[in-house]
Each structure stands twice: as structure tokens, then as C-alpha cells.
């Protein structure tokens, strides 16, 4: 009896060992990556390049090819936010630079052209390149010249490219970065919509919103204190009519990059959960992710299905960047509501465990610059921009507010009755019950840290929109209420 048991246990151990060996060896087989360096290219084509937020057509299952990329470097003035100009250095005329789409085994013949009117030499370091400097050592190109080099893409993934000419940080800070996608064999699984979103931090001599052409500030860059943190090169690149769009039921894939130069991004879409995330742009897929970390010089591919309509706000969840420095975009989803997934508000009243004290923003003393005389039209234009970054999240794009939570500004009797009270509300905050257009609200509005000029502009915009009484608010009026 005892012996029998011993034998069977030996057999068991034997089988266990065999199984283990089989599992290990089969595992080995699966994880050994294909050697993409040996893929033979078949034919030649010109790569389609797109400016953000567009991406080129999916590769699908085409065979590896010789892919010619023609990219022009342009130093050009652009708009950082309303009234603020900045001299961007660009790959292909956009920040981030043109999106490049390849598949493993492709041989990329890269033509880097430095526009003759440019002042500076540039080069390109593509993280998808296996070679010295990621191509930078072969691509330093003087203005009015062209450099050609080629490389084989041998690792699937989403990779950052950027300029690596001295001073490197400055070239990146001025917008010289973009994404190159290397699709696996057979391509990525098809989705309905694909977009290109890339974060970057910008350092200007004036503080956020200071008007005019703003030069780059190396001191702030070294200290890593950006004035702007934005998607796709500027404030409002994905809002104010530039929203990304999708329809209920569609799948959306975002190719997300972070050009830096300094900050890492806590990438998040408010009201969505990423079904799949290619962590760090590589082959590892994580599922059901709320916020994914994207390092400077790194990326992520995220995809998700949109089940309900509405505006889904894209942010860096290092959240002050979103609401105070510009890292805010919108995915606008249209279609029928799905009450099973999201009911809309069904509860009334607000629970305030901290009590009703007014929250204060720290007041930063900044050098006062003279406020220029502005026409109403200018005020409205500037005010709209401020509204978009400061007020819009609560009061909504058309000032409609959110029922039971945030009062409407559109055709608001509360607002139109007393402009002094409205100014005070922005300056000092407001808490407790108010009645607006017959509906009671009991929430907290924190005091806003805006300048007299900014408050005058945003209020003039609000008063001149959505059926309000067209009051013009001046900086002096704001000052007298401080």
C-alpha cells in the first residue's frame, strides 16, 4: 500500500516535471520576438504625414516597404492663446510635428529639410530608431539644406521624436517633437476614430495670458515652472470648435505623446475609462485604466468605447495644469442617451461635509503691467478665452450651467440684476443658497485668482453672450470691488 503510493507520487512528480517543461518551453516560444531586422521590404511609397489631431490611415496588413518621409522644419510665429504669440520651431509646420505611421520591418528613408529662411540648424532624434542618437548624429542640417538617412523600424510601438540640437531643451521647449507609430504585423485592431494628442510645457517671459509676442524663458525652463501646459501646442487646440468627435457606440483610439521638455503627464479623460492602454506606448496592454502616466519623451496608446453622449474633457490630471495652464481638451460625443449607463442627475441638494466656508486661491503678487484700452469686441474675444479655461467646466460652454449643481449664466436674472454683486462673486467667491431663474442652488464658487483686466474681459463676454444684458465691465469697476 505504502509502496503503491510512493510510485504514484513519483509518477505524479514525473508528469508535473514534464508539464512544467512543456509550459516553460511553449512560453519561451511565444515570448521570443520575431526578428524584424530580417523582414525584406517589398516596394516603395511616400509616407502620409498628418498634422494633429489627425493621424494617417491605418497600415492594415500591407507588407513592409521602403517608406519615404519628407519633413520640413519651419520656424514660425503662432498663437499660444488669444492675444499671445510665440515663435514655434516645428517639424512639418505644426506642434506637435507631423504624425508618421509605419509598420515593423519598414525601411524609412528620412528626408529632413531645413527651410532656407530659418535661422537655426536642427536635427531629429526618433526614439523608433535603433542607432546612435536616434538618427540625430546623421541629421544635423543647416538652414537651406537637406539631410537624408534611413533606418529600419524593428520594434512595434508608439515613439516620440524630437530635435536634439544644442541647446536641446530649448528646441524641445519651442515645439520640436512629434510621434512615430510602428504598427505590429497585421496592424492594430481596427477602431472607428483615431486621434493624435501630444502634451507639451511652454515657458514664456510673461506669465500665463500676458499679451504680445512672448519670448522663451530659459530660467523658467531650468526651474521647470511652465506658464503653459497644453495639448497640441496651444491653449484651445481641442476646444472652441476644435473638439475631437465621436458617436455613441464608436470606439476611439488616442495616440498620446508627451513632448515635455520637463513635465510628466497624468493623462485622463473625465467620464471615460480606457478599455485598453498600451502602457508607455509599448506592447504591454493594461485594461480598465482611469489615468495613465506618460513620461516626458514617452507615449501611450489608449482606446475606449463611448457609450453615452456628452462632452468628455481631456486633461492632465495634475489638475491645476488643466484649469490654469491650458491642458484641457474635449471629446464631443453625439448620439442617444443611454440611461442605463448614465442616468443624468436624479438627486437634488448638495452635501457639504467641510461646511460652507469660502475657499480662497492664493494671491500671487505679480508685476502690474498697464492695462491697454480695449474695445468691447476685443474684451469679448479675450473674455471668451478666459471663460474657456476658468469658468466653462462648471457653467458649461453655452452658460447653461448644470441643473441642481451650478447656476446658469445664460439669461440669468441673478447675473443681470446686479453687476457689482457678480464682480464680487468672482473676486471673493460665493457660498450659500441663491435663486437663479427660479431655481435654487446651494453650492460653492471659489474666489478666482484673476486680474482686474481678466475679470473685466470675462464678465463683458458673459454679459454680451447668451441673451444677457450687454453690460460692459471695466477694470476700474472690478478694482472698486476688490
Amino acid at each position, binding site marked *: 500500500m505504502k509502496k503503491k503510493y510512493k510510485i504514484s507520487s513519483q509518477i505524479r512528480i514525473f508528469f508535473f516535471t514534464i508539464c512544467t517543461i512543456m509550459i516553460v518551453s511553449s512560453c519561451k516560444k511565444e515570448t521570443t520576438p520575431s526578428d524584424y531586422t530580417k523582414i525584406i521590404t517589398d516596394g516603395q511609397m511616400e509616407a502620409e504625414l498628418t498634422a494633429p489631431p489627425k493621424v494617417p490611415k491605418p497600415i492594415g496588413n500591407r507588407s513592409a516597404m521602403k517608406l519615404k518621409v519628407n519633413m520640413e522644419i519651419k520656424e514660425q510665429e503662432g498663437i499660444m492663446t488669444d492675444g499671445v504669440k510665440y515663435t514655434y520651431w516645428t517639424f512639418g509646420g505644426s506642434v506637435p510635428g507631423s504624425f508618421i505611421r509605419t509598420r515593423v520591418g519598414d525601411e524609412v528613408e528620412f528626408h529632413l529639410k531645413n527651410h532656407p529662411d530659418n535661422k537655426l540648424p536642427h536635427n531629429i532624434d526618433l526614439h523608433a530608431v535603433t542607432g546612435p542618437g536616434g538618427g*540625430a548624429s546623421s541629421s544635423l542640417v543647416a538652414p*537651406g539644406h537637406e539631410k537624408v538617412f534611413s533606418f529600419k523600424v524593428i520594434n512595434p510601438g508608439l515613439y516620440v521624436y524630437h530635435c536634439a540640437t544644442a541647446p*536641446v531643451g530649448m528646441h524641445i521647449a519651442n515645439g520640436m517633437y512629434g510621434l512615430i507609430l510602428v504598427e505590429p504585423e497585421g496592424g492594430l485592431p481596427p477602431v472607428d476614430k483615431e486621434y493624435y494628442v501630444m502634451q507639451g510645457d511652454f515657458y514664456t517671459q510673461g506669465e500665463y495670458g500676458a499679451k504680445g509676442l512672448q519670448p522663451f524663458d530659459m530660467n523658467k525652463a531650468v526651474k521647470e515652472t511652465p506658464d503653459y501646459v497644453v495639448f497640441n501646442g496651444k491653449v484651445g487646440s481641442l476646444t472652441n470648435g476644435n473638439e475631437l468627435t465621436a458617436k455613441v457606440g464608436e470606439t476611439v483610439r488616442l495616440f498620446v505623446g508627451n513632448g515635455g521638455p520637463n513635465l510628466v503627464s497624468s493623462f485622463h479623460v473625465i467620464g471615460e475609462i480606457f478599455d485598453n492602454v498600451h502602457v508607455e506606448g509599448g506592447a504591454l496592454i493594461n485594461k480598465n485604466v482611469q489615468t495613465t502616466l506618460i513620461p516626458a519623451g514617452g507615449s501611450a496608446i489608449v482606446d475606449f468605447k463611448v457609450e453615452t453622449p456628452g462632452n468628455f474633457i481631456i486633461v492632465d490630471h495634475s489638475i491645476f495644469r488643466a484649469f490654469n495652464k491650458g491642458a484641457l481638451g474635449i471629446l464631443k460625443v453625439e448620439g442617444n442617451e443611454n440611461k442605463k449607463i448614465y442616468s443624468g442627475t436624479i438627486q437634488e441638494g448638495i452635501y457639504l461635509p467641510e461646511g460652507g466656508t469660502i475657499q480662497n486661491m492664493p494671491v500671487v503678487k505679480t508685476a502690474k503691467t498697464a492695462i491697454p484700452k480695449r474695445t468691447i469686441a476685443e474684451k469679448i474675444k479675450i473674455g471668451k478665452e478666459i471663460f474657456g479655461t476658468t469658468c466653462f467646466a462648471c457653467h458649461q460652454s453655452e452658460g447653461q450651467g448644470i441643473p441642481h449643481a451650478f447656476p446658469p449664466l445664460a439669461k440669468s436674472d441673478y447675473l443681470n440684476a446686479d453687476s457689482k454683486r457678480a464682480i464680487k462673486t468672482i473676486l471673493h467667491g460665493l457660498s450659500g443658497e441663491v435663486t437663479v431663474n427660479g431655481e435654487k442652488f446651494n453650492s460653492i464658487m471659489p474666489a478666482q485668482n484673476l486680474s482686474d483686466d481678466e475679470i473685466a474681459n470675462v464678465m463683458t463676454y458673459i454679459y454680451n453672450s447668451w441673451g444677457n444684458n450687454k453690460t460692459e465691465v471695466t477694470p476700474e469697476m472690478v478694482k472698486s470691488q476688490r
Partner: protein
Amino acid sequence: MRKSILIIILFLAQIPSINGQESRMVPIKEGTFVPLYGATAKKPVNVRSFYIDVYPITNSEYLSFIKKNPSFSKSKIKGIFADKSYLSYWKSDFDFGNANPKSPVANVSWFAAKKYCECQGKRLPTMDEWEYVAMADEKKIDARTKAEFNKYILSWYEKSKTYENPIGKTFQNYWGVYDMHGLVWEWTADFNSIFLSGESRKDKSQDKNLFCGAASVNATDLMDYAAFMRYAFRGSLKAQYSTRNLGFRCASTTKL
């Protein structure tokens, strides 16, 4: 008669450009300074006294040079001396088209610039000489630590097409020299002696005895990013290159 009038007109037209103010030189006193690159162990380099042109060479000056040396004209110049963009904005061999005669000549190769200076009995300034003169503002020999001075230089990078401006409109520096900053880049005799490879982050290998450039590791002042850009620019050039933002001026060791 008509011919002689034409000759007189041509002659009159050329007087101010050939022997006028433009080719004037000023003396630069001997001195030492620590350049961003090239000074081993951050020791200062010595710059012996020399003379330098007050202004960069203009289109009209260059035209008269070409008339005397047609082998350096747009169509005749040998391929090894200049690439295809040589004088690309000129209309033809002896016509700079719509360009301002008083604007700096650009799209000139190093070989052509060198030849030009030699024909005047001069030479191109060395990089140390050029940087030495360029570190002066209106009042100080070395203004590199002044924030305003650096701001001025950097603001130039944000202005486009400054090559269309005439010479002498920027500030006159301590030495009486104009346009070191704010107009065009300028060739120097040894523009490629500091070698920033295209990959500026790795230029720290110690085996480059001649090429001691390193975009960050070996630089004397990491915040002098205006100078970084000048060195990077020079590093991107080859002697036959010519670009729209690049001109030159001449220097001389002795008084001419």
C-alpha cells in the same frame, strides 16, 4: 557720348559702395576671454590685437568683387567651392535683383567669403576673434552676463527675414563695430574647429582632442544659450554651404 554717360553713371554708382564707409575697419585691442567652447579647462584664450570690418559685406560690395572675379559668379563657381544655393536670391551673375544693395550679402560659401577677404588684402576673422568682438555691447567689452544683452541677441532669433535689413541699423558696440548680432550669422575662418556633432548630447567623449565641443558638459556657461546656438549653427555647416541667414565680414592682423 551715350557710352561715356553710361560709364560715368556706373562709376558714380560704384563710388559709395567700393570705397565708402562700408569697408571701414576698426582696431580691436588685445585681450583675453573665456569662450563658451574651445578653452580647455576653462582657461581664457588670448586674442592678439587685430582689425575688423565695421560692417558685414553688402550686396553691392560683393557685386563689385564678382565683376573682378567672374569665376565666383553664380553660374561659374566650381561645385566644390559652393553648393547650389550659392547666391540663390540673385537674379543673375551680375545682378542681385530686388535685394537691397546695402543689405548684407548672404548665401555665400566659406570658400567665396575667404576669397573675397583675400582680394581685399584681408582674411576672415577667427572664431575667437569674432566671439571676442561679439561679446561687447555699447559700453562694455564683455556684456555676456547682462540679461538685457542676451535678451537682445535672443530676440533676433524670433524675428524673421532680418537678412533683408540694411547694415548699420543695429547697435554700435564698444569697439565701434555694427551688426554682430541681429542681422545675419557670419562665417569665421575656423568655423568648424569646435565640433558639435549632430548629436549634441554625446559630445563629451574625451578622445576628441581637436574637437572639444560638448553641448553641455564642456561648456563654460550653461545659460548662455545664445552662444550655444551660434556654435550649433557653425557645427551644421560645411565650407561649400551657403544659407540665407549667413553672411561675413573681414579682418586683418595689420592696419591696411
